[in-house]
């Protein structure tokens, strides 16, 4: 039996908007992934620890507060620091196009901006997970 892809859907920082995170989480679940949703107000440390504990293949972060330049790279560093070298780390939310190159440089594999269909996220994970 093929092992199912495990995804941690996380809400870093103080942002309380969880509609997108929950919709994505449910879409990923419907697509056959195993999904763990962290809930709100996760510090980068909490996200990295959850990723390790849950032994996920993917960390998917949703943020709408504008704090992504600080929080996303931190999560990448902490996840990698815990030895999770192959974990696919993606993000989405209200993130200006201009910020994306720096995020990718910091190790975010892809950023999904407003209007992206959930199918695009599912396909990206399937095509890029290690």
């Amino acid at each position: 039996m093929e092992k199912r892809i495990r995804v941690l859907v996380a809400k870093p920082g103080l942002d309380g908007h969880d509609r997108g995170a929950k919709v994505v989480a449910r879409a990923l679940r419907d697509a056959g992934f195993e999904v763990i949703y962290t809930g709100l107000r996760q510090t980068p440390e909490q996200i990295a620890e959850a990723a390790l504990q849950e032994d996920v293949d993917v960390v998917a972060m949703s943020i709408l507060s504008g704090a992504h330049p600080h929080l996303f790279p931190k999560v990448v560093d902490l996840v990698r620091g815990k030895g999770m070298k192959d974990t696919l780390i993606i993000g989405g939310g209200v993130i200006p196009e201009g910020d994306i190159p720096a995020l990718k440089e910091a190790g975010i594999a892809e950023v999904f901006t407003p209007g992206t269909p959930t199918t695009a996220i599912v396909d990206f994970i399937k095509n890029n997970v290690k």
Partner: protein
Amino acid sequence: MSNEKIQAELAAYEASVQKAIARFPERPHLPEQRLYTPLDIKDTDYAEEISFPGVYPYTRGVQPTMYRGRFWTMRMYAGFSTAEESNKRYRYLIESGATGLSCAFDLPTQIGYDSDDDISEGEVGKVGVAIDSLADMEILFDKIDLGKVSTSMTINAPASVLLAMYIAVAEKQGVTPDQLKGTIQNDILKEYAARGTYIFPPRPSMRLITNIFEFCSKNVPKWNTISISGYHIREAGSTASQEIAFTIADGIAYVEAAIKAGLNVDDFAGRLSFFWNAHNNVLEEVAKFRASRRVWAKVMKERFHAQKPKSMMLRVHTQTAGSMLTAQQPNNNIVRVALQTAAAVMGGTQSLHTNSRDEALALPTEESVMIALRTQQIVAYESGLADVIDPLAGSYYVEALTNKIEAEAWDYIKKIDEIGGAVAAIEKGYIQKEIQDSAYKWQMDVESGAKTIVGVNKFQIEEEAPKNLLRVDASVGEKQKAKLAEMKAKRDNAAVEAALAELEKACSDENENLMPHILKAVRTYATLGEICGVMRKVFGEYEAHVSL
């Protein structure tokens, strides 16, 4: 034409419809009922259910002359970066014709953290202004006469503290609390269910809220002590009926809590206010507004036996639906907001914020916010929509839809009552699940094409990323930290300690009204983080129910 005759003619019409459909099949995903007639509202009693503006059940509006006497308040939600920057924006808005202020605070402020807290890193000034102490508040309202302006503050868990700061700033301007006009959102239940900026658990949060009701009824009588909100519930994905039902259920919980705390309903109910979303479907929104007034009036009269008319009137601030703005082809958003404005005005709102075209991407630039404000002014002055009261009343469709939304709202309220009220419904995750299910259905409808979003799943173009978006300077965090350190060095730290100790003691006594103690602390320049820190210590923090 008698109802029997209409029935007969309707049957004939239906026959012609079948012929038309054969030649012109109807577009997919339309509402089932294509036409409304007097038959659809034949059981609606005008005097009992529709009535007159300013007359129970207020379906047609809460004031007798509505906009003929005074337009809705054009109240643009604003705030970002430092108090200095936000003060500039507030004065720009007032100069441009805004008739009320509306303060947006950053997330650390909303969640009771100072700018120098570790958890605030990267968040300071991003989604609103950073307010760490009375010092920032003084700058925020520099050259703004608090005796003249009315100010809404979108602040919930620490609403008591921001209200105290506002009162303290006014004091320094020589304005006494009884003159102050404004609103604090102060609606913690929707934070748990949909918005996420809670701090303390429900019990102490309700205590703080009822403390504010009591304090203001005696000292700040012109202040709206709460803005019971459906906007965020809708933004989180709910339907129109759920928006008003869950909000009114929250309202019921607040009224019950206040009565339990010993207040007389007519002493505080007149200062409860509401906050609706103005969504895309214009006619459904108008019906929703009308239904909401009718439902609340009946709740206050039949359930809580309010005697004063003001206790039964649902007064509402509205915001156009942020979730309906698209990042694609942002100028289209100007059109969306114009339609949503028309809906809010025909719906009878008392106050309105219109979103800017760039807000799917960032906080608005001056140019974008000007267009949003002009949208309101054009609707007010040029469209005629504000010139006759409740103009859609009597429309067979709108009256039928008003009735339908009212009925659906009662069903949800009954269900929530059966669960044990709004607090229980939230603790059990019922409201969150309903919202989530609606949100998921919406997304699936968009992805299947059942719902069209112009520019997103139809009429897409290749476009460049927009330029000239507002960016909050990354140095704001450092600036605030420096300001904080300077302020803490200058203030009387002994007085701060004493005030915080007194506050802590008061927190532990459930019979103490906390407002005077918070006011005292605020005046010593105790920071928001310090004051909330004391409350966190005594009350603990809310443990969110994580459900998918």
